């Protein structure tokens, strides 16, 4: 076997997805990433491989096949039961150095964002964080740009034979979009925000056909420097932004009377059939709203049936998290705010005056 050299890019092939399990259960993000990985593998004409670490988790592997994995490599060891940065980095890097995948995707969870950068540094390659769109085929990328950017595609030259993965994410605090490439090193690594990629329909025949390779890692648990003392789930109120049909989010315009604004937002959500109150980043950064309510690039990506933005200006980083909602209603004092660019219905004015009238009018309609 040739020695690992991240610059020898022609030695690398196949699309890999790191699949995270917690408590012996796969995460929803795994299915999203496998589904997305399938598209990339088809564009590249290569295989899609899931990489799953844990203790006695081989039974989970076939399910990943149902979403598009050709093969799953399962790395088993008692020391991999619970995530530790040290053991997981060692195992992921060992397998990657031996097998040399061209692409490695990870979910941008608190674990993926702990593991990904450490692996990229050890593997001597680049990593792009929190991607919202991925392409390999240049035709597909140009088509994406044509539909989703202000780039004049017809008058721009593209190298159509380019097979670098093109990783798109909001940049500069979410005020611009950027497509990043990693042309000189492999694997090309990206973390992908949960909730962004669409899960493919499950296919039992594909699950049955999925190849599973189990590797026993034989780790020496005593040699690890990192010890997990406790893993706890917190019985905090669960804010289910991702599953909500109606989300009413509040932003800077709500800051002057946050308690009243929250109350109005919840009442409006209830009038619209029941839903959840979300928040812009500004209110979370200011400590006025909890982080689990944040919609946007650094918060959650949502696509409810109805999204109402109250007093939110609409920076790209916020829009990245909500612009695929089915129907968007925006209320803002300033008619020039970018939020109105994505709204189906815009109402200019003070949310504290408008929202009570909206609630009244909706109730009157019913």
């Amino acid at each position, binding site marked *: 076997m040739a020695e690992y050299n991240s610059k020898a890019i022609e030695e690398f092939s196949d699309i890999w997805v790191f699949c995270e399990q917690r408590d012996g259960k796969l995460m929803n993000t795994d299915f999203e990433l496998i589904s997305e990985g399938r598209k990339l593998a088809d564009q590249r004409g290569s295989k899609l491989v899931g990489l799953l670490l844990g203790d006695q988790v081989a039974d989970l592997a076939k399910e990943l096949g149902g979403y598009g994995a050709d093969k799953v490599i399962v790395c088993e060891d008692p020391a991999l039961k619970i995530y530790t940065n040290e053991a997981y980095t060692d195992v992921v890097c060992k397998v990657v150095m031996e097998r040399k995948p061209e692409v490695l995707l990870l979910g941008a969870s608190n674990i993926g964002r702990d593991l990904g950068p450490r692996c990229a540094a050890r593997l001597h390659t*680049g990593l792009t964080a929190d991607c919202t769109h991925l392409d390999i085929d240049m035709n597909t990328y140009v088509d994406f740009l044509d539909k989703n*950017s202000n780039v004049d595609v017809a008058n721009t030259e593209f190298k159509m034979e380019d097979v670098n993965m093109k990783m798109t994410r909001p940049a*500069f605090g979410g005020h611009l979009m950027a497509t990043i490439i990693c042309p000189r090193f492999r694997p090309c690594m990206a973390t992908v925000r949960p909730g962004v990629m669409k899960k493919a329909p499950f296919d039992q025949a594909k699950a049955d056909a999925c190849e599973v390779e189990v590797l026993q890692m034989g780790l020496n648990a005593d040699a690890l420097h990192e010890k997990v003392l406790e893993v*706890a789930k917190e019985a905090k109120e669960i804010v289910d932004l991702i599953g909500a049909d109606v989300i009413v989010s509040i932003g800077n315009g709500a800051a002057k009377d946050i308690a009243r604004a929250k109350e109005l937002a919840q009442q409006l959500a209830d009038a*619209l059939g029941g839903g959840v109150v979300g928040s812009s980043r500004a209110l979370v950064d200011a400590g006025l709203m909890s982080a689990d309510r944040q919609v946007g690039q650094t918060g959650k990506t949502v696509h409810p049936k109805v999204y109402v933005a109250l007093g939110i200006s609409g920076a790209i980083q916020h829009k990245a998290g909500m612009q695929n909602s089915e129907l968007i209603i925006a209320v803002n004092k300033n008619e020039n705010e970018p939020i109105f660019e994505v709204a189906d219905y815009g109402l200019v004015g003070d949310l504290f005056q408008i929202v009570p009238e909206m609630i009244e009018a909706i109730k009157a309609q019913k």
Partner: protein
Amino acid sequence: MKIYVCVKQVPDTSGVVAVNPDGTMNRSKMPTIINPDDLNAMEAALTLKEREGATVVAISMGPPQAGEMMRELLAMGADEAVLISGREFGGSDTFATSQIIAGGIHHLGIEEGDLILCGRQAIDGDTAQVGPQIAEKLHLPQVTYATEIVKDGNTYTVKRALEDGYMKIQVKSPCLITCIKELNEPRYMTVQGVFEADEKPLLILDYEALKDEPLIEADTIGLKGSPTNIFKSFNPPVKGQGEMLQGSVKEMAAALADRLAAKHVI
């Protein structure tokens, strides 16, 4: 005990963002702040210093103007400040940045009992990658997303936030911990602190000072050497604008309700 606190000067992206004609951000036209999560790391270092005694070293990579921020950190209570600054370093991605900062820390020395604290992520890039990558380059254990740090001798017990709960992790120093907002409430600098800051050392490390550092590879730093490159930056298109409802507050609300009813949303 030496505590390194990694900090970054960032444009204040919460306000108006100045954009160049080519679509990149015009940093020179925007006010700068100390990255918010880094202040939590700084506060954690100062708390440990008060309890245990320590030398707190604030370290950053950035343009010469970042020296101003280093003075603020000295005024907050840091004992020393180190600014890594050189044209050769400009435009570095996270891989490049982390090896330069790791090289700087290696150059200054890190030994048993020492600690490196970072903010979870910087608000201009939101990558959360530089902390873990510094740890990897220095072969140190890392714990990210810390909401509680308890020191017992050379052992740290860190509460690490997960999406649905937390884990408690024990590591031995030297190690690297990244901090989030929930960890503490950063202090302000005091008037006395501002006076004292002028007496404290601010060391500038340029390319010349670090070029022989084994952790820094000359061909993977700066804009040209960084593994990742910007292929294209762009604005999303303006979606075919929806309908701006007109009239008084009451009229707008009624018009909205009509449209929602027509679409069977309500």
